[in-house]
């Protein structure tokens, strides 16, 4: 089953009367890069949180490399080798960039290897100049870059990113695109995004969410030119 990184069957999440994710069947191959798009409130983040263990799905199952992980806590899922970035920034603000990345590296490496890995990530993401600065003092783009470093430090084979490009400048996005390509040589990725240009530049297959359901799943060009998808984004009735 190693050729399948992630699968969900009938994944459903209800909040009272709201069905935020509705019987989602999803499948991601090893080393595949998939973008999730959809209008605000479509249920992308909910789907994301159910996979990562941040929320327990009401119904349905999640499998990672063939192992059922439904209802696991985030640390167990991460320990499998899954790198996760949530929609809102989640970093240790009063610690240095170096310490942040070291903490991520130490989980999967012994002391010596963790130091080496930290150095490697700092070089990979060109963070050398700000390595000793407290993360909280950095600009938004730099913090996003460090958070990507936290994700990469564990050498994951599955990477889940919720809106990594949100609020970034064009230059930052370009840099991030390069990093994501690099990570994709060793890991499958799911990227939740809004930025169409960014999606076009990295994605082949795109999954469109709408009202908690998968509306469409196809090549990025066909998705972008699809009238139903365009209508959903423009808020008209399909």
């Amino acid at each position, binding site marked *: 089953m190693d050729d399948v990184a992630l699968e969900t069957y009938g994944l459903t999440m209800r909040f009272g009367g709201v069905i935020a994710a509705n019987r989602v069947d999803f499948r991601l191959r090893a080393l595949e890069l998939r973008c999730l798009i959809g209008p605000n409130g479509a249920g992308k983040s909910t789907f994301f949180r159910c996979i990562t263990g941040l929320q327990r799905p009401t119904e349905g199952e999640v499998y990672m490399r063939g192992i059922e992980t439904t209802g696991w*806590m985030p*640390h167990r899922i991460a320990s499998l080798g899954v790198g996760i970035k*949530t929609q809102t920034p989640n970093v240790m603000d009063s610690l240095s960039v170096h310490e942040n990345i070291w903490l991520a590296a130490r*989980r999967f490496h012994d002391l010596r290897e963790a130091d080496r890995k930290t150095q490697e990530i700092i070089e990979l993401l060109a963070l050398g100049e700000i390595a000793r600065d407290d993360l909280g003092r950095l600009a938004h783009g730099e913090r996003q870059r460090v958070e990507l470093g936290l994700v990469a430090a564990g050498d994951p084979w599955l990477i889940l990113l919720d809106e990594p490009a949100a609020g970034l400048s064009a230059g930052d996005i370009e840099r991030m695109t390069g990093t994501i390509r690099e990570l994709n040589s060793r890991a499958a990725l799911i990227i939740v995004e809004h930025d169409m240009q960014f999606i076009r530049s990295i994605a082949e297959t795109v999954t469109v969410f709408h009202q908690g359901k998968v509306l469409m799943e196809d090549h990025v060009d066909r998705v972008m030119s699809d009238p139903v998808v365009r209508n959903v984004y423009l808020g008209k009735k399909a």
Partner: protein
Amino acid sequence: MPGSLTRDAITIALVTGVLVWVLPLIIGTYTLTVLVIYGMLALSLGLIWGFGGILCFGQAAFFGLGAYAYAISAINIGESTLPMFLAVLVPAAFAALLGAMMFYGRLGDVYLGVITLVVTLILFKTVNSTAGPQYAIGNARLGGFNGIPGFPTLNVPGLPDAYIWGDGYFYVCAALLGLVYMLVTALLRSSFGRVAVGIRENETRMSLMGYDVRARKTVMFAIGAAIAGLAGALFANWAEIVTPSLFSLGQSAEIIIWCIVGGLGTRLGPVLGAAGLAYLKFLLGQQALIDNALVTGLVLVLFVLFLPKGIVPALSGLWNFGFVRWRLPGHIHQRRRPRGRERTRNG
């Protein structure tokens, strides 16, 4: 923390040595002993709160448990060596159970505060109501609100008749505080300690990186309780009686105030805060003009208003500022490129 652990250990040993030599020239060793014990108690909360992010309103519960575990087992065993170990182990085990319940139950910080507070109250009430002769553990009568007097005090290990008291007892307590301080330093330098600080900063992020936050907080909580328990046993030996007031909420509140005044997130702060405030209380206790609790409250309010980070962070900030200015006059102008959007430290 820059520098090596060995250097830290040497510094701690030297500072402890000098203080143990100088302080008795100013303050009596009997008073000093209790200041040292309170310093250790404050360090226990300073560790789990300042570095582990666990605000416990019931640190006095572990202090009291340590004291009672010592007194009860010392009466039954007749000497002090094993009871000293029990005084560390019993509170640690109790905290491990309580902590596992709280952390595995995914309770929020507020509930954690409430539960530790309630547990302290329950212990206080329970012990307080054990006055009758039917309440006894082995040969030790619990004595209710009267407490337990007359247990064997500290002796040289293996020599039950060689009691350690007076100046000697002060040296033992000071050495133990130095040792605990060194262990805390080593812990904070270790991967476990660094991960604990990461958890204090952002639990979600740490669990998304694969750390089991619940297990680590439980262990941290138990370590804090072990230190508080040791302080409790030392206190029992100093006072030569244990009473339910050890478990009181007032005691718990005082520990929190020591930490705030001394400075959270430092090792030295809580120790200094405890020693300073306890000494102030001792001085005030010799007169009847001003109420003690009033002064403690006033000190707390003044600190929260004017020195919210506490003494030690304020002093080290001042020191760094002066040091940088004096040593590296050009340094300030050599800062790297300005940042686009500066964020505040605690943002």
